[in-house]
C-alpha cells in the first residue's frame, strides 16, 4: 500500500513530505531504541515510534526509512522540523497508540521487517 493509504488507515496528520505519499510501503518496524532501529530495520521500511527527538529523524535518514509514523499524537517540535534536513523522509503523526498502529497496519498487509532476513 502507499503512504497515503497508511495515513488514511491511521487517521494520521502529515507533518512534512506530503509530496512523497505515493511511496509504496511493504514493511514496517516499531521501536523506541535507536540502536535497534539501526541494527534491525532494513532499508525501505516504515518506522513507527513514540520518540520525537532529532535523533530519530537522523536515524530514519541513515537507515533509508520510507517514512516515520509518530504514535500517540506525538509530534517533533517546530524547531526540530525546521532545523533538520528531512526533505526525503515523510513524517506522520497518528493519535493511535503503538499497539493499535501496528495491529491496523499488520491486518492491512504490512509485514514486520528484520534486516537481512525475509519475513
Amino acid at each position, binding site marked *: 500500500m502507499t503512504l497515503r493509504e497508511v495515513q488514511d488507515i491511521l487517521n494520521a496528520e502529515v507533518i512534512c513530505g506530503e509530496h512523497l505519499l505515493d511511496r509504496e510501503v511493504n514493511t514496517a518496524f516499531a521501536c*523506541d*531504541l*535507536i*540502536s*535497534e532501529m*539501526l*541494527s534491525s530495520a532494513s*532499508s525501505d521500511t516504515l518506522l513507527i*515510534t513514540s*520518540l520525537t*527527538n*532529532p*535523533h*530519530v*529523524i*537522523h*536515524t530514519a*535518514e*541513515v*537507515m*533509508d526509512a520510507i517514512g516515520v509514523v509518530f504514535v500517540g499524537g506525538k509530534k517533533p517540535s517546530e524547531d526540530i522540523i525546521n532545523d533538520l*534536513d528531512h526533505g526525503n523522509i515523510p513524517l506522520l503523526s497518528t493519535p493511535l497508540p503503538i499497539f493499535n498502529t501496528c495491529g491496523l497496519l499488520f491486518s492491512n498487509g504490512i509485514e514486520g521487517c528484520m534486516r537481512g532476513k525475509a519475513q
Partner: protein
Amino acid sequence: MTELHQTAVNKPQLTLRFKIDEKDFLIAGESASKTKKALQQLGLKQEIVKNIAIIVYEAAMNIVIHATHGKIKIIIVPDKVIVLSEDVGEGIPDIELAMKEGYSTAPHEVREMGFGAGMGLPNIKQCSNELDIKTTVGSGTTLTATIYLNPADTKQVETGAMYV
C-alpha cells in the same frame, strides 16, 4: 567541522573528519548523515553506505555518552573504508562484556532519548568486516572498523570531487 580532501593522484584517498564533544548528542546523527551523503556521492552501494553510516553513528554516540571528547575519521581508499574512532575518556573495563548485546552502562537520561540500549559495539561489529578495539581504563579508547569493497562498489571513488 567536516574536512574533505583528496591526496596523491596515484593513490586516491578521501578522508572525512568529525570532532565529537561530550554530551553533544546531535553531532552523532549529523556525522552519520554527512558520512552517508558523502559516500553516496562516491557512488558506493546503498547497503555499504548504510553500514558505514551506522558504524559512524554508534561510534560517535559512544564518545558522546562515555568519553570526554574524541574524533572520528573515515578514510576511503579504493579497496576499503576505515572508520577510526579515538577518544579521551574512561575506557572500557571489560570489552567482552561491552560486546554483549543489551549490556549497557549508559545513564538513565541517555536511555530516555532512545540511546544506551547496549547495542552500540555489537552493531559496529555486525556492520564491519574487521573490528579492532584498543582501550586503556582511565585514558581512552581507539576503535578501528574496516569495511572491504569489491571493485564494483568503488568504480567512482577514483574520480569526482565531493562536498558535504
